[in-house]
């Protein structure tokens, strides 16, 4: 058992789940964790209504790794924001992880996000005044965990992404690839069921991008995380188990 596997086992046993490394892809056979029904998201520009998402239906099974592609303005990020609970649809119903998020209030939605969703951003979005460990610990501040337990979990998450030796470094002391791995550690530290990644390799060179995608694959396969990734990069999309294309607010 190598160190990463040990870290993974530690992380899994902590959250009460068993790693499943034997089944590479199980997406098609499992129940959907994300269910969109006739989702409409409209914005108003001056007096003109713009339907960015137009009666979109979508089912994403639990444990899948899906890539969402499409030209700029096709509605990818808008859909991702809706699924992540950052926004609400204008019409339609959206059920994520068994909760109808389209009907939730702000406070409930924030709490739900903090428990259900892990975010990986294009620009990493680490807090510059905090160390890698403190950045990873951030989502746990919203839990009832004690200080030492929070720290321990953050260390495990950093071990999973291979950055345990950089835990006391600040973001400006890390490379872009390392920053994104810290971002991924932050996304998984609270053990969310779903990870949403908005152009996670957009700021990285090929080598770093491959490392990040490999890490996402691991999280999907070994930790059974459902991953929804918005990307323009065909090489990144190839790593997903399902690639969906969106254009003018509709799935192709």
């Amino acid at each position, binding site marked *: 058992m190598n160190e990463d596997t040990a870290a993974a086992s530690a992380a899994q046993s902590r959250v009460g789940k068993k790693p499943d490394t034997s089944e590479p892809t199980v997406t098609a056979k499992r129940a959907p964790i994300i269910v969109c029904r006739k989702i409409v998201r409209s914005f108003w520009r001056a007096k003109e209504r713009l339907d960015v998402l137009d009666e979109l239906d979508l089912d994403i099974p639990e444990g899948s790794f899906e890539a969402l592609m499409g030209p700029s303005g096709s509605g990818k990020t808008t859909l991702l924001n809706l699924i992540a609970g*950052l926004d609400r649809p204008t019409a339609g119903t959206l059920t994520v992880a068994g909760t109808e998020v389209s009907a939730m209030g702000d406070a409930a939605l924030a709490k739900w996000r903090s428990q259900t969703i892990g975010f990986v951003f294009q620009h990493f*979005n680490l*807090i*510059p005044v905090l160390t890698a460990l*403190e950045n990873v*610990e951030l989502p746990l*501040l919203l839990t009832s965990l004690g*200080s030492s337990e929070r720290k321990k979990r953050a260390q495990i998450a950093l071990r999973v992404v291979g950055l345990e030796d950089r835990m006391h470094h600040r973001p400006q002391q890390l490379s872009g690839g390392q920053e994104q791995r810290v971002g991924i550690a932050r996304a998984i530290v609270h053990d969310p069921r779903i990870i949403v990644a908005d152009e996670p390799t957009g700021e990285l060179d090929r080598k770093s991008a491959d490392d990040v995608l490999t890490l996402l694959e691991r999280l999907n396969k070994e930790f059974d995380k459902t991953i929804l990734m918005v990307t323009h990069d065909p090489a990144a999309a190839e790593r997903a188990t399902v690639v969906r294309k969106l254009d003018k607010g509709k799935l192709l």
Partner: protein
Amino acid sequence: MTLTSLSIKNIGHNWLRTILTVVGTAIAILSFVLIRTTLSAWEAGVDNAAQDRLSTIHRVTFVMPLPKRYFDEFNGARGRIDGVDVATFVNWVGHKHPVRETEFFATLAVDTATYFDVYPEMSVAPDRLAAWKENRQGAIIGEALAKQFGWSLGDEVTLLGTIYPGDWKYRIEGIYVATKKSVDRAQFLTHWSYLNDSLPEGQRDMIGWVASTVTDASRAADISAAIDTKFDDQDVQTRTMSEKALTMEFLGGASAILGALDIVSLVIMGIMMLILGNTIAMGVRERTHEYGVLLALGFRPKHIATFVVGEGLTIGLLGGGLGLLISYPLVEQGMGRWLEENMGAYFPYFSIPTSVAALALGMAVVLAGVAALVPAYSASKLDVITALRRIG
């Protein structure tokens, strides 16, 4: 890491700006402390005035003299006033140093027999007191005045007369020390009899005011009225008041300046609050994207508002603390000592009152918190998606 430590760490986003803001706050606090300490020192005489001591002056103004015979009716040769314990009299002489004319100090011609009985908070060695009483040209001076002009026991001193023209020669026979902080430690006390005998016949036997202690401080008002009634039907009427009231009357001319200083000190704090508010608002604008990230992670608007207010409070605390850290050595060791030694007549005791230090620190923290309220409110109203889109 905790939510509180995260709030405090936020001040590290832009160290240069944080340091400049903290230093700016510290300077504002220093100014506030200096002004408030000056006001406090100025008013120390009033605050610490003896409760059992009365002053009897000419009814019109304290500048006009009283006949010396009035004193004899207090508890002297011509009579006694019920309730008066000990009385003495004083005459303002207004001498100046012949070279350093601009350096003010009080020169008083006093009744050597009774003066130190009425003012026991001015302590002088018994042998020096006796020597002073023996020498009609003797003088007792305050320790601060001795230090100011480098005078010591036995020195022959010539002062320049103003109210009473001419050169006035004295010999330093004693140096008094103050046992209460309200006492002017820079007085020059001479014999009234020496002054009186030196004046032309028509100007003799006049005194400035009578100071008397009463046996029961709670009866001070009644005794004051009794004194004034006693002289009602004489050629010069009197006005008797507590020492505190007289001191306030002395300071009355300066009340407008004191009031202005009071306002200036508050204006300084107001400016400090605006600077803090601007700095915090700039930080909030720059970190909009970061707040968006925190909101996405599940932090609530109340958390964001708390972070902003916490940052303001931290800066206020640091600025206030630094301001006091600078103020104490500057005032207690430097400026305060200099003022006491060189302007002891105005500032007999120049030291930062604990209440002023506490008020300064409290105001720095509270005003910083208030300054952060508007930026905190703005930050708490951020829309998560809009905030995430904002770069820089």
